[in-house]
Structures are given as structure tokens and as C-alpha cells.
């Protein structure tokens, strides 16, 4: 029986190969260091008809050893303005939050990380989420800049 560590690395390898075989439009991924399967560099093309159109955004995905039981950490390397991304590029998005019961009752379990978010699904969700204009709690400064908020 594979140990959890092996399982994560194996799954990531499979997902990277899948992504290279069946690329997701507007999204590409590769390893930062060829010897480290747990650290990916992803490139997101800004979806059409959004403020991000024509933009290329580079981000790093860091997977925990417990992947897929725990979510990866997503950090934008490129400068990007988004209500859910803080000035360091760190992303606050519920699908990348650790599973379990939110003690504040703010997020339902299904809004948080699930171990079946495959890479393809995650990248699709990320693209969709870039289109959302909902303001959330991470970047309070960017909220202040908006009139009427």
C-alpha cells in the first residue's frame, strides 16, 4: 500500500501529464524545479471580456505533502489587482481553504477544498473565479479604493 507521501507525488505526476495531454484553454503549468513535483508554476491568460483580457499572469502552486487531502497554496508572482489577492500575491479563495467545519459558520464544507479537485478542475475554477466581481475580505485596501464601498 502506498504511503500518503508517495500518493501525493504520484497523483501530481499524473495530473501534470494529463494537463499536458489535454491542455486547458488559457492555462498552462510546469514544474518550477524539475526535481520537485510539489512546486508548480502556472500561467493564466486573462479571460476575454474581463479586465484581465490580454494579460498573462504567472502564479506558483505549492502542494503540501498531504495532497490531495490538503489544498495547494496559490500565490501570484505577477502583479495583479483582484479583490481576493493581497499585495504579496497571496490568494484567498474558499476552494483552496483546508477542509473541515468552519468554526465561524462562514463557509460550507462544499465551498472549501475537496480531495477530488483535479488540477484541470482547479484551473477551470480559477479562471471562472477571476471573472467574479464579488468583494471579499482579503484585500481590505482594494475595497476602500472603490467608491461607495
Amino acid at each position: 500500500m502506498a504511503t500518503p507521501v508517495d500518493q501525493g507525488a504520484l497523483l501530481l505526476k499524473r495530473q501534470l501529464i494529463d494537463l499536458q495531454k489535454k491542455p486547458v484553454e488559457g492555462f498552462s503549468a510546469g514544474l518550477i524545479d524539475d526535481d520537485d513535483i510539489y512546486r508548480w508554476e502556472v500561467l493564466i491568460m486573462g479571460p476575454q471580456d474581463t479586465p484581465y483580457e490580454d494579460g498573462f499572469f504567472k502564479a506558483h502552486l505549492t502542494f503540501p505533502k498531504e495532497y490531495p487531502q490538503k489544498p495547494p497554496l496559490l500565490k501570484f508572482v505577477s502583479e495583479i489587482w483582484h479583490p481576493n489577492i493581497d499585495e504579496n500575491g497571496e490568494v484567498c479563495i474558499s476552494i483552496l481553504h483546508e477542509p473541515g467545519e468552519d468554526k465561524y459558520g462562514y463557509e460550507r464544507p462544499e465551498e472549501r477544498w475537496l480531495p477530488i479537485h483535479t488540477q484541470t478542475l482547479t484551473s477551470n475554477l480559477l479562471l471562472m473565479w477571476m471573472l467574479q466581481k464579488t468583494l471579499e475580505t482579503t484585500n481590505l485596501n482594494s475595497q476602500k479604493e472603490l467608491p461607495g464601498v
Partner: protein
Amino acid sequence: MGNCLKSPTNDDISLLRGNEGHSEPPDSSGLGPPPPYQETVPVYHPTPNVSRPANQLTEEEQIKIAQRLGLINHLPTGIFDGSKKVRECVICMGEFAIGDSVRFLPCMHTYHKDCIDDWLMRSFTCPSCLEPVDAALLTTYETNSSSN
């Protein structure tokens, strides 16, 4: 949705860890006392972003985890024999091999036992249909008792 506000009371386990952070480096001369005997204790995840060895859990967390373990043990298990339609465990994306231990959730979704048990200790929902497992367990009991 997202809530990344840091809570000052959140997950502060530094006190539980004692003075681990300040401990003296091990005496390389070999004259110091031997290091304390340490068993490998299982690590649990009482709340999101918190992982703690079993011996550092609060009483409340211990009860919650014991209840969860009990409920998980109530879920049926089996050995994959190739007779079912499902071929793949969606958690590890690996194909079921004959002889693999599998667990069946009340919603009829099937996973490798190791894959789903680890997940259920973190979140008691089916990753495929998001059905809360405890609610589904109750429904199963009710259906069984009414049909008898």
C-alpha cells in the same frame, strides 16, 4: 467565498507544544541524558489548518475525534473484486486493483479505504456528492428500520 481574516485565538498551539522551540541542541559529546522515549503518535486534524498529535488534543477534541472514528468504523468496507462498475478512486485517481480495501459511503460512492478514511477525519462529507456522511447514515438507519 473566502475568509482569510486571522483570528488571534485561532490555532495557537505554541503553548501546547511547550518549550520545544527553545530546547537546547542535542549534546553531541554523548554525556547528556538520553533523549526522552518518543512513540510515534497519530496526528489528527480537529479544525481546519490545525494538525496535532493525539497526545496534544484538548478533551473536547478527543471526544469529537473518538466519535468521528466510531462513525467511520460504522461505514461498510470491502475488498475490491472487480465486480462493481466503479473502476477508479477519485481521490488518488488510481484504478482499483483486485484485493484493494475499499469503503462504501451511504451515498453509494466508493473509495480506497485509506484515501477516504484520511479525508473523513478532516471533513465528514462525501467528496463526490458533498452529502454530509452523518446525515446520510441517519437516513440509512431510518430506511432500514422502516423497511423491516
